[in-house]
């Protein structure tokens, strides 16, 4: 079974139940808490939308009989009309002056408004997660590239080497501060810029140390 990334999962999630990639989606869902959380949040949206459309319980039979009799007496309805729920009555009768497409459009607009309202915070969280993943992907690569240089640093009494080591500690400290800042605000461009600059300084210092 081919492994898929979180981005692929989220893009394919809406595909039909009989999708040939379904087993890959399930496998990813088992292993990825972030995507499980994403699926749960979408489930909440669906549930909320479904509740909006759910029919209210039918009123007692006697209500309909009484209502029918009254309406027939007033000449507003003809005999033989099928019984309807109050919601269907409202949508088909109370709002009957409005054309059905308009009613359907209004109903859809309400559903979409609820979906958008709930999706805002979810999209924001997904975006932050994506920013964070992108940054971590870059900095993990940088760290991996620099690790071999860190393993063979010269140790010497010379003031120059001592100064380079001391400044390397300063830069490592800034890298740590910047990484925390990026985790707090992944979408903050300036925080990312400071982090990348710090890695560049570290690379420069390591190169100088290895020349000593």
């Amino acid at each position, binding site marked *: 079974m081919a492994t898929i990334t979180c981005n692929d999962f989220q893009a394919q999630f809406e595909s039909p139940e009989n999708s040939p990639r379904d087993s890959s989606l399930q496998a990813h869902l088992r292993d990825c808490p972030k995507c499980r959380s994403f699926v749960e949040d979408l489930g909440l949206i669906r549930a909320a939308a479904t509740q909006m459309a759910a029919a209210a319980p039918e009123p007692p039979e006697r209500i309909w009989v009484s209502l029918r009799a009254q309406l027939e007496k007033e000449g507003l309805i003809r005999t033989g009309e099928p019984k309807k729920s109050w919601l269907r009555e409202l949508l088909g009768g109370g709002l009957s002056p409005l054309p059905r497409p308009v009613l359907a459009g209004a109903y859809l607009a309400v559903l979409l408004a609820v979906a958008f309202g709930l999706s805002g915070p979810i999209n924001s969280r997904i975006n932050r997660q994506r920013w964070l993943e992108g940054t971590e992907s870059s900095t993990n690569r940088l760290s991996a590239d620099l690790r071999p240089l860190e393993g063979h640093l010269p140790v010497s009494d010379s003031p*120059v080497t001592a*100064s*380079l080591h*001391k*400044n390397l500690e300063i*830069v490592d400290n800034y890298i740590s501060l910047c990484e925390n*800042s990026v985790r707090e605000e992944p979408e903050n461009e*300036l925080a990312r810029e400071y982090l990348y600059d710090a890695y560049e300084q570290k690379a420069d210092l390591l190169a100088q140390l290895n020349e000593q």
Partner: protein
Amino acid sequence: MSTAQVVSLGFNWKSGLLAPGLLLAASSPLFAHNIEKHFKVEPRSVVTIHNPNGKVVVKAWTRSEVMVIATHTSDKVEVDAEQAGNRVDVTTHQISDSASPEDLRADYQINVPEDAELQIHDDSGEVSVANVMGDMNVETVGAGVDLEDAAGYLTVKTVGGSFQCVRCAGRLEVSSISGSFKLLNLRSYHVHAQTSKGNILFDGEFLPNGIYRLKNYSGVIEVHFSPGDSFDLSATSLKGKVNSQASLTPPAHPQRVYSKFGNAIFGTFNAGHAKVELSSFDGTINVLKRD
């Protein structure tokens, strides 16, 4: 181009041959090794200086000549000054494997034509350049760098050394990890100064169409301005404070505030002819009116 004229000072070999005692005395630190060389050069000559430890003082003069005076006390190093075409190379060589950092020390006094281009590498010690108008690249580790009345394309890089630039013009790019910068009475149209732990003081002119970028991680960035200056200001501290005494016109378009934790100030002072960008990670930025 004429060959170098060498003037050796200090050592008299005949004296050294007289007695072992004199030989022993000659190897003591009290007897410095001095060398003086002169090189005739054409306009826009290039002078490269590579000195691991010591003082490098470069001054401009009106002669079409490069003069190198080198002094070192240890016999574990030797200084070389050679000419290749219009380039003069000055180097301190280590000739013994057992040299300590102090043994590597050599001090230079170098006079160059005003339009000479300089390439200086001095890890520890001090670098001082005055009145040289050619392009310049200076790299040090712990050595401080002091430029006066310099112009051209100036690039300075230190690890921990401080940097001071007085009455400099042209284009300036300086970077450091823990060094502080003082940029005084500048007339540069492009300044890019970045340090991590150090402070930055800018007290110079904001030329029309000039770009001034000052950046640090922590410490203080202090910029002075006069009522007649004209600049667009963008000052952002991700986690620190930003203070400005300039009465700014807010930008026409809303500026993005980078961080919910820090502070930022954006706006135009007078006509906004120059561009001033100040940024700090968690330091303080002060934009202050000159007295």
